[in-house]
């Protein structure tokens, strides 16, 4: 009898047991995750959580105390260069040469990746197009706007057509327009089949971009999974906020008796409810409130999000 084994594709990035200490302070402790082809993985955590230290080890910038990293099946270490050809790195701070033109910046790094000949010009032109800098390619980077510098910074990470693109908080300090452009770019990279490791402390970015999110705090990976999986950790209760006037006391009592309502509380200008499946229960809630003498003017429904998950896991808000 023969058995047919279905082979799972090898993840582009595989990490396990990563640990790094600086003196007595443990910056990263037993962190492990993997990223598949075409997947965007977010490391979500506040400043100082260990995100940059983790990606520094992933990119081979930092010697690790323990653990393993492989990219595209090749082991990453500070003293080997094999796996680096598969990595594109976009650091948090701008890492460009301001006295070189955009094109010269790209050509320099392309050559470091061993790209030469006709490929060199073609690859540089393609990258300029991707980051929308073709028209300004001959200008020195020092003459670029902040957003253009950011785009060049990202372009430098794309030159080698990496299998793994690592972006370290690329939207920090960026104006809304450039931020939107950066997020749209990352979505395109995913569509092109690139594996993306994206660190951020912005919950909205993680929710928008990432197929899976790892929540990291104080160097530990607290939880990881899809948004749905993570939200499930804190239950499925939604928060419903009613702006209302009239007999709020009677409305509070009537709503508390409804089966989907887990909790009801009155405040000065309305009612706050914790509801199991708010979207389906909303008509019943509004009818009950009106029947009890409350005049509802607005309704807000807040479903659980990663902010709530982080709060649940760590006991503190993401912005702390």
């Amino acid at each position, binding site marked *: 009898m023969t058995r047919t084994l279905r082979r799972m594709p090898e993840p582009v990035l595989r990490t396990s047991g990563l640990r790094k200490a600086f003196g007595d302070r443990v910056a990263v402790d037993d962190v492990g995750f993997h990223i598949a082809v075409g997947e965007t993985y977010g490391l979500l955590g506040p400043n100082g959580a260990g995100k940059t230290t983790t990606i*520094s080890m992933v*990119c*081979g*910038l*930092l*010697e690790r105390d323990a653990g393993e990293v492989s990219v595209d099946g090749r082991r990453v270490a*500070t*003293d080997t*260069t*094999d796996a*680096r*050809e598969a*990595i594109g*790195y976009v*650091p948090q*701070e*701008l*890492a*460009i*040469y301001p*006295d*070189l033109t955009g094109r*010269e910046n790209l050509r*320099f*790094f392309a*050559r*470091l*990746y*061993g790209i030469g000949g006709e490929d060199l010009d073609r690859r540089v032109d393609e990258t300029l197009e991707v980051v929308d800098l073709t028209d300004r390619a001959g200008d020195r980077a020092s003459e670029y706007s902040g957003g253009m510098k950011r785009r060049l910074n990202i372009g*430098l990470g794309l030159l080698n057509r990496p299998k793994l693109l690592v972006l370290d908080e690329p939207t920090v300090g960026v104006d809304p327009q450039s931020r939107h452009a950066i997020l749209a770019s990352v979505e395109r990279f995913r569509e092109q089949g690139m594996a993306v490791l994206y660190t951020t402390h912005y919950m909205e970015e993680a929710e928008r971009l990432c197929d899976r999110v790892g929540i990291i705090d104080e160097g530990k990976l607290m939880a990881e999974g899809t948004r749905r999986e993570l939200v499930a950790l804190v239950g499925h209760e939604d928060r419903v906020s009613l702006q209302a006037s009239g007999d709020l006391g009677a409305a509070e009592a009537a709503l508390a008796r409804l089966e989907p309502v887990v909790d009801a509380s009155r405040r000065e200008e309305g009612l706050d409810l914790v509801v199991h499946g708010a979207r389906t229960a909303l008509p019943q809630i509004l009818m009950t409130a009106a029947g009890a003498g409350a005049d509802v003017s607005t309704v807000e429904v807040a479903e659980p999000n990663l902010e709530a998950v982080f709060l649940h896991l760590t006991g503190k808000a993401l912005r702390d």
Partner: protein
Amino acid sequence: MRRALVIAAKDLRLRIRDRSAFIIGFLVPFGLAGIFSLTLADVDEEGDIQVAYTVVDLDGGHLAGGFVDLLGSLDFVELGEASTVAEAERLADGGEVDAAFVLPEGFSDSVGAGRGGEIRVLVDPRSDVGGLVARSLARSFAGDLDAVTLSVATALASGAPPEEAQGLAERAGAVPPAARLDRDAAESRTLSTTGFFAIGMAVFFVFFTVEFGVRSLLDERQDGTLARLLVAPLRPAWIVAGKVLSGFVVGVVSMGALVIATGAFLGAEWGNPVGVILLVLFGVASAVAVTALVATLAKTPQQAGGYTSLVTVVLGLIGGTFFPISQASFLGTVSLVAPQAWMMRGFLRIAGGGEVAEVVPSLLVLSVFVVVTGSAAVVRARSLMGR
């Protein structure tokens, strides 16, 4: 290795764009060499050092006469005689001569009796090179007299009759000009002021010119581009090699341009081209290695700039790039710790008409500087890169 060349080419492009390499590596040393050579009054029409001395021979003995004859035999000395010390003082104070030598009464007898003697040197305070050369001549002659005094004293102590002392002193002193006088004066005798300052400024400033090389590692670390380089598929050693190479190329081009320009426009003679090329290559390599080590001891580019400037100025001064240093002096001994001193020594020998073989000791010592400080710099550079 090709990637090290890519990094070096990028650094060179940046250096050319900010123009500082041109200013520090060429414009300033060329300008200073020109200014120094023009402002020093000891230059004759041909650019050779010419000094005016006067001598007051109150002794009239054979040793004093030997010294006067020696001065008279030097073709760069215009020698006059004064009859009194007061007249000599007036000539020196008034700037009519660069220096005056006073040989006191009983000088030869004193030396002949094994008691030693003293030559007074009165210097015109406005004469830089002339005064230095005068002191060097007197010191060198005095050193030879010490040997005579010692010989006579030893002979007398061994029981030789006192009446033989005079003859002994004459025989001991009859070896002029002393070999050491020749060596000490050789550089000044054959080298023009312009030539000296062309060499001195080129050697002094090449250390400033090349210091950007490895220091730019700190710039790249501060600007974040070092991380990007380290993520690229290249070994850290190639990054360091690229930095070293760019510094070396700028240093060689800078010194080469100075050799050509000071020769063409200031009339400086550098001497045997092969010797000059070897000294430029070895000297620049030592400058790169020394400044790299100093730069890697710093934590920020600003700190590195301060450290390298300090070390470069101190080593440049004690290395004799601004004024001639007698190898027989205490400063001459101290100067041996400075690669600049070995560069100066080699260049001065070659410029003074020496053969290539005469700079081999300088080349060997400069090689030691390269190996020792360069190795330490590489170790330090690795720690800069967070490895």
